[in-house]
């Protein structure tokens, strides 16, 4: 998910060229108070005009506790990004409040209720503690993201290379996402010069189970994709597992083994996930059966 400052005309029109999975136009922290109106008009007009070529679009709005949140929703539902992202979510009610506003505008303009999906960002200690109820609060929710910069400040610490200060929050967000059946997206890595540090963090969050990472530089997109794209060996192994299970099912065989090892449900699920990821990464054709 690539962050794009909502008042940057060049970036708002070009961000999809770098092929992130999602481009997220920011109306919140990257836009000064004096430019909130201009950024809103810019994102509104651009979203209504440009074909983002299949790249998912999201807009991070200002909170409803600010003078800008309601207008952001009013404009953005009309601009129809795929997703509205709610910042600094602390409780389920925050999601319901935004959902009520979105529904009001959807109704007014004749858009089917539920068209606009939601993403939440967890950026405070209270949000971390309430992650589960937040993640389960709406059918519109596609994912939950961790925002670490504000969080570490509240925790009275700072970001470190190994990310020890974020282990609890990352785990909490990830478990909440899995309970709710939605995506978990990790926080940004601000030092854009440090490619090695960035890669190490992407490997860490992939190993934890996250579905992706927010990025602030187009250069970081290919690095995330590199880590997340399954290797040839992983794909080969997954395809063999799926083939073995199909063969066993056609023979009506109950117990399945491959290379002398039993294949059980978790192994099959992991194989399916590997192939889904490989398809999304473009290294396995869509036609390959799961």
């Amino acid at each position, binding site marked *: 998910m690539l962050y794009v400052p909502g008042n*940057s*005309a*060049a970036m708002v*029109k*070009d961000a999809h060229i770098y092929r992130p999975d999602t481009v997220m136009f920011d109306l919140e922290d990257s836009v000064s108070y004096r430019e909130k*109106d*201009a950024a809103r*008009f*810019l994102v*509104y*007009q*651009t979203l*209504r*005009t*440009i074909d983002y070529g299949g790249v998912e679009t999201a807009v991070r709005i200002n909170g409803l506790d600010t003078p800008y949140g309601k*207008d952001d929703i*009013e*404009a953005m539902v*009309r601009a129809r990004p795929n997703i509205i992202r709610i910042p600094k979510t602390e409780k389920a009610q925050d999601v319901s409040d935004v959902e009520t506003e979105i529904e009001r505008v959807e109704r*007014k*303009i004749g858009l089917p209720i539920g068209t606009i999906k939601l993403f939440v960002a967890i950026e405070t200690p209270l949000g971390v503690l309430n992650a589960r109820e937040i993640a389960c609060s709406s059918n519109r929710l596609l994912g939950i993201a961790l925002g670490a910069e504000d969080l570490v400040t509240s925790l009275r610490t700072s970001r470190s290379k190994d990310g020890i200060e974020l282990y609890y929050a990352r785990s909490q967000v990830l478990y909440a996402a899995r309970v709710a059946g939605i995506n978990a997206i990790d926080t940004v890595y601000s030092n854009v010069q440090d490619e090695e540090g960035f890669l190490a963090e992407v490997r860490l969050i992939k190993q934890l189970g996250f579905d992706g990472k927010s990025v602030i530089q187009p250069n970081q997109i290919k690095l995330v994709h590199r880590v997340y794209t399954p290797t040839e060996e992983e794909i080969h192994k997954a395809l063999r597992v799926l083939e073995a299970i199909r063969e066993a099912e056609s023979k009506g065989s109950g117990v399945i083994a491959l290379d002398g090892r039993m294949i059980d449900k978790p192994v099959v699920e992991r194989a399916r996930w590997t192939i889904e990821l490989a398809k999304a990464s473009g290294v396995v054709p869509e036609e390959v059966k799961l």
Partner: protein
Amino acid sequence: MRILHAGTAGTLESSDVLITVERNPEKGFVIELESISEARFGNRIREVITETLKKLQVEDVKVRVQDRSALDCTIRARLTAAVFRAAGIEKYPWEELE
């Protein structure tokens, strides 16, 4: 919409446009355009400015446009922001803007 004072929006960065609107003591629109692509797109930019002003129901206005190869949608966005700022309006009639 009534223009009360000068209003500006946008930047001079590439792909953007800086637009200033103010009241025209005479009748009608006056558009001052400065663009590196004036020869190719000058007429189109003036057209977008005029259409947007009509849609916003603004009359008797001077518009200074410093274009840095902005798209039509960027010009519309910046002009709309400049007009609302110049009119001192912070409550946007989204239904009419659609």
